[in-house]
């Protein structure tokens, strides 16, 4: 069976072959949900936002000009829906929080990360997952877009509406925060062991 590309599906959708839309749902459902969950931190809200994004994408497919990939376009819709949901929770845009641009104070700690060679990769992944889920949404969403949705800096910039340079800075700070939190977590364990 020939697998149609997103672009081919979009072209056929625009010609009225609406039965192909569930294929796009299948392709973007889980990764989209992961992104929504990172931003909204609530399963029900994330599902609602994702449904809303799919409905908007379906209704607005005629407006999709194809200047970016369908995935980027869809994530932009999803991201905006999530932002609106956050705003409804009276949380102003996560990229305009007071003190924006500053990581939480790392505090005094050893200069360099410790030795994680005693940890299995599975354990590390689970801890990283746990730390990312506790990170501020602006960092967690960037981490998700870069590592899970596998978007480039330019695509993340397109999705979020931020300059590419700012995206790089956010990603760097997100990684920095992650490393710091991992260091804290794993060193505690090392002491116990």
């Amino acid at each position, binding site marked *: 069976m020939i697998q149609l590309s997103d672009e081919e599906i979009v072209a056929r959708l625009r010609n009225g072959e609406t039965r192909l839309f569930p294929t796009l749902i299948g392709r973007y459902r889980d990764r989209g949900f992961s992104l929504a969950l990172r931003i909204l931190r609530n399963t029900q809200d994330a599902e609602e936002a994702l*449904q809303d994004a799919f409905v908007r994408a379906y209704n607005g497919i005629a407006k999709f000009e194809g200047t970016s990939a369908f995935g980027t376009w869809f994530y932009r819709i999803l991201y905006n829906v999530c932002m609106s949901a956050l705003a409804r929770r009276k949380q102003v845009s996560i990229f305009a929080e007071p003190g924006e641009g500053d990581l939480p104070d790392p505090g005094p700690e050893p200069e360099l990360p410790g030795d994680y060679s005693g940890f299995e990769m599975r354990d590390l992944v689970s801890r990283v997952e746990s730390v990312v889920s506790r990170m501020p949404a602006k960092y967690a969403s960037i981490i998700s877009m870069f590592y899970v949705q596998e978007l480039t800096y330019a695509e993340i910039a397109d999705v979020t509406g931020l300059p590419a340079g700012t995206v790089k800075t956010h990603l760097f700070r997100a990684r920095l925060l992650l490393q710091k939190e991992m260091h804290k977590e794993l060193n505690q364990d090392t002491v116990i062991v």
Partner: protein
Amino acid sequence: MNHPARQTLLEYAWSVPGDPGFSETAEHIAGCPRCRGALAAVRAVEQSLHRLGVQRPSAAFTRDLLKKLGMRETTPIWWTFLKNFAPILASGVVAAAVIALGSSTSGDAEPSLRKSLFGVRPAMEALMAGVDGCTAWTTGIAAKYLTFSLGSDAISLAMFLCFLFAGIGLLDRFLLGPMLRRKNY
């Protein structure tokens, strides 16, 4: 030995040759086991990030979404299989059964029943008699299998199942299918 600051090491881990400070840090790391260990730790976390899994929404998510969009959920695979192959299978099985059983004398059916049902001639007569004739003929053959052969012969059982699937397939193709697929996604 002056170790690079934590941030410098992190920048190095995410940089590429040619970036500012890359070669100096690389030189230090090459001769410093402690920094090599620290770099390995940074990279382990980075690898973990690449392995972050995707979460899945609830099982009802797609069904609810398709409902919102006015579409029907994807047909199950087994139903698609039956829908696509049962009518073809049915035609083949009916033809094979008529020809094979018509010339065979090894069936368990009573001679009068066999004479009246099996063979090309009874089949043609049933076809000529229209819908009622075909129904009576098909029912007669099914009854034969149920009454005389079922359980005594694996081939008969298999053929009975073929008839059953064929019936479902034909029902779907000509009756249920057009009704259900009227609003297919």
